[in-house]
């Protein structure tokens, strides 16, 4: 009787040990995946900062003014040429 119990326990122990190995493996694999995702997130953040900077550089007022004046032949608006509308009181 006790021999059988021992045998069953041994089998259970072996099974648990294998499960432990497996879960440890899974944990490490998922961890590497998480790591990769975090790196990607960081990379994207850097890219975003870079793009924001580009937007600022390209949207510089001096650049806009230069191309408006030179390429599009625009002139600054003056109040004399502006039609002011007043919103009717509700």
């Amino acid at each position, binding site marked *: 009787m006790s021999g059988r119990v021992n045998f069953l326990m041994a089998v259970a122990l072996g099974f648990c040990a294998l499960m432990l190995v497996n879960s440890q493996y899974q944990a490490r694999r998922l961890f590497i995946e998480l790591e990769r995702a975090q790196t990607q997130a960081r990379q994207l953040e850097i890219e975003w900062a870079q793009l924001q900077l580009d937007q600022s550089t390209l949207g510089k007022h001096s650049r806009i003014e230069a191309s408006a004046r030179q390429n599009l032949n625009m002139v600054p608006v003056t109040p004399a040429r502006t039609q002011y509308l*007043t919103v009717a009181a509700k």
Partner: protein
Amino acid sequence: MKRIVGLPRSPRVAAAKGVPFSSTPELKVKLPVWRSRMVLFMLFLAFLALICRALWLQALSTDFLQKQGESRYARTLELPATRGKITDRNGQVLASSVPVRAIWAIPEDVLEAPKEKLRELAKLLDMSEQTLRGKLDSDRSFVYLKRQVDPQIADAVLKLGIDGIQTRKEYKRFYPEGEVMAHVVGFTNVEDVGQEGIELGWQKTLAGVQGSRRVIKDRLGHIVEDMRAIREPQDGKNLALSIDSKIQYIAFTKLKEAVEKNKAKAGGIVVLDARTGEVLALANMPSYNPNDRRLLTGSQLRNRVMTDTYEPGSIMKPFTVALALETGRVTPETYIQTAPGKMTIGTATIGDAHPHGVLSVAQVIEKSSNVGTVKMALQMQPQEMWGMFTSVGLGQQPKFGFPGAVAGRVRPYKSWRPIEQATMSYGHGISVSLIQMARSYMIFARNGDIIPLSFLKLAEQPVGQKVISEKTAVAVRRMMEMAAGPTGTAPKAQVPGYRVAGKTGTAYKLAGGKYVNKYVGSFVGLAPASDPRIIVAVMIDEPSGGLHYGGDVAAPVFSEVVASTLRAMNVSPDSSVTDIIIPADAAKESL
């Protein structure tokens, strides 16, 4: 066992005597006792040595050994924190950090590399081979070859495969607006530490805290597991400034044009939001490009609006008049005899540029008469005037946290002599910075109260502190509107479509304790006069293009900046849009 006493001399003799074989003489050899003791002792010593060693390893040097063991598989990774971005009030990026690399070398190892590779390396790093060799010719085991290198170039350098060349991650700060924002934003040094402007003043907020994590790495260098909780890096906070980059650009370009046109040494301009106390624009000339600071001079670096004090001149007159009105000594219609345009106080004589005759208080401001102002000032106690100047922030250390902002100088009233009180009433004998001057005009723009300035975008409006009554503020504003009109000293300050109020100032400069023939022309004003939204202060230092009056050099800048700024802020016009009149011979203000 029977003891055999006495040993036979030889076996043969023993046999002859009939001794049995079982008792060989060898068995009877008696070893000296010390020998066995010796062995025992040696064994004991050996065990002791083992125990000592075990103790040494397990108890005394465990830390060291565990560390050594860990260092074979555990790694501490630095998690660099990014410096916060600086944006303007609309979210436009003014300063941002981009990751770059620093390339460093172990000179000994690198010098062993083949010559062609070193030549290629020098080419990639954009330096001559000699410079490179010069850097490598060092006893140290760590030499920076170049810092803040583009990641692409750094990768190319690593691809060369030279032993002893390594890279390190770092950040480079970019300033897309360049010289336009230079004096507000400032810049950081190569270590990412703020050196000037907002970057310096708000260093603690902007700089992050570096994080770290302890990990186990496998043979291939993959991270396998965290050994303890990650210390997350804390990125620096982003700052939203009160600056509006559009208004800043307008202010900077107009100032630049004026400084160039008047051949001035320098200039400064500041635009304030009268309702919130936010600084909408602050520019200086000459300026510099914060992205390339190789040829930077002290003159370019100087934030004149904040750090330079000057004698303001006539722009102080409205305060004297406001005080006289507030204390009931005069009304706007009180008449003052200013003829013959000269006045002697003690041994000194003060005078007007042109004698005016009888002027009302309002006209004193309109024509900027020194004599009229002094006659009002001399009715007052020094303490009252000192209290007025102090309560609008003159001579007081500014509290907005901008590095280098100066307090200016208003001497204690107890030591004022009458002539000093007289000159101070029209802005000589005290020194102020332009930003202080702009802020002090808040009492006229805000109907009598003054609020603190802010360089950061505010979520709520600050509470004002009452200095003068609303009635006085409105009256002085009305006078300043006349000064900025066709009959005043600054007709060029007029803006089509908007009513503006302001005051010119022209002051001699002090050099070595004496007044010299150099001027500071300034103009401080507010617009629209019916309900002021902005305060603009302009200063042109040493104009030498023929004109030097504040009304000629600074007022046109004011006019252009106000026109563009109010339009940019969507403020509706408060006067008819007609051609403005600028008389050929405008009233000259007094120095």
